[in-house]
């Protein structure tokens, strides 16, 4: 249901608009003014489930941003791409929901994963992430987006 042409670089931030699972929303709203919207699409997606596939379709690079609970130290930034994502895609264990891992596994089976997929996850605990941590995450996403734009020969930031 896309009425316009989407840029080939997309930053898809996943989460809820409400605390405590609002990291993706906070990141998306901070990132939205950073890029030329003709070159980079930044979206905040509220628990998209399989609809994520629709948002990735046609993109050359997708940078996924989400909160992570892996048992690592809170505020740890996880960067996954290439084969490092295999573990995440294989780890689909939800009994009734379609979470990120299930959706990526489904996309892979259907040949719908973008050529370049990167995952930036911030380890969270029960506490709300500090603004410093959000800034750190936004910097990391900006850096990955620049690399993607550079490799596709497009302009960088506004």
């Amino acid at each position, binding site marked *: 249901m896309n*009425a316009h042409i989407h840029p080939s670089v997309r930053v898809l931030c996943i989460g809820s608009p409400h605390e405590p699972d609002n990291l993706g929303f906070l990141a998306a709203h901070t990132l939205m003014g950073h890029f030329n919207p003709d070159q980079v699409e930044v979206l905040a997606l509220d*628990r998209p489930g*399989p609809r994520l596939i*629709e948002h990735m379709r046609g993109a050359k690079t997708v940078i996924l941003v989400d909160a992570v609970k892996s048992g690592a130290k809170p505020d740890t930034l996880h960067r996954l791409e290439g084969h490092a994502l295999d573990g995440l895609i294989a780890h689909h264990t939800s009994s*009734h929901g379609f979470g990120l891992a299930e959706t990526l596994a*489904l996309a892979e*089976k*259907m040949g719908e994963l973008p050529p370049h997929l990167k995952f930036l996850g911030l380890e969270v605990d029960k506490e709300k992430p500090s603004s410093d941590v959000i800034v750190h995450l936004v910097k990391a996403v900006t850096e990955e987006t620049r690399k993607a734009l550079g490799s596709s020969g497009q302009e960088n930031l506004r």
Partner: protein
Amino acid sequence: MTERSFNVNIPVLTRVEGEGALDLSIEKGQISELRLRIFEPPRLFEKFLEGRSYMEVPDMVARICGICPVAYQMSATQALENILGLQPGPWLSAMRRLFYCGEWIESHSMHIHLLAAPDFLGFSNAIDLAGKYPDIVRRGLRLQEAGNAIIRLLGGRSVHPVGVRVGGFWRAPSTSDVASLLEELQTLLPEAEALVQWTATLPLPDGQQDFESVSLGNAGEYPMNQGRIVSSHGLDIAIADFEKEFSESHVPHSTALHCHHQGQDYLVGPLARMNLNFSTLPDSTHKLAIATGISFPSANVFHSIVARALELHLAMSEAIRLLQGYEPSDSPYQQGTPRTGIGFGATEAPRGLLWHRYELDETGSIVSARIVPPTSQNQARMEADLRTSLNHFGLDKPEAQLRQHAETVIRNYDPCISCATHFLKLKIQHI
């Protein structure tokens, strides 16, 4: 028939919404105990609503379910408008039907492709199904997204929509958004037709059962938002009389209430609706239904998946019709004045009849609320079906096959346990 005794335990039922389990004891070749255990904690929504303004109800009840929020909003607004004396005009009735079409398309497509179809084709989940049939799953996702787009048009967003208020919608959609959506749906209609044809080819289990179908009916159309409560046993009552005929009770093994009609289990949902309202299908859906070779009313509960696909096609056709006739409105809602009273609402959620009752005080605060979701109504029927289906399947089958068949039976009902508590571990005990 073997005389063995054993227990089967399905500790967590997968591919259902919510958390539950099945305990099954087979003693000397007979089922001695069968309990569909719903252990998800009670969600107490009815209690949360007490003391809140009637205007808060549509947003609050939308939170009961991420898959069928429209149903909760539509039953609630109907009941509250019943108290306020508001009558929806033709524009609002059409938009509410359009809104409901979106939810049926989204929910039915998800259930058919991601939850139920893997059972009938021998896959453990939709991800494995997508490995062999990527185009089928892709079609399912496209249809699901179309449903979500309809919900967004009127609700602002597809999950827990916020566009609904008592009296109507906060705003009317723009003609340009309507035109864009109409074009998308017209493109997808052949896919909805292909879906019906595909479900009719699935190797569905046989098995005729004796059950009562209950749904809205006598609505002058295939029911979504209005009608009387009718059944295959001749029931025909106003929605306000639900409590005189139907009773809920606690069972020790479930945090969801079991609902009975005059002490008997009954079926709600797509097959019940199709069984009772077949003659009201629009011509195009009716022709597709005839071509499936299934004769409705059907006593094979596994025909639910075909009924679901037919309803998806109906909803797509109806949505196109309603969008083609769309005229924007300067008054998408009516303003009500709070007053004391009791009101009733009943609409057809994707999973079946969803009944609400509210009492308001003179300030418009909720004094009491009662919500009877479809999964509660189907629980006793699911247990009865499991007994019949497992006996028909053969209790001498290996435990793994019994487990798979039990899960298939339950998933066929598309239970939404999160709504009902407000699903499945299977524990089979050979004694």
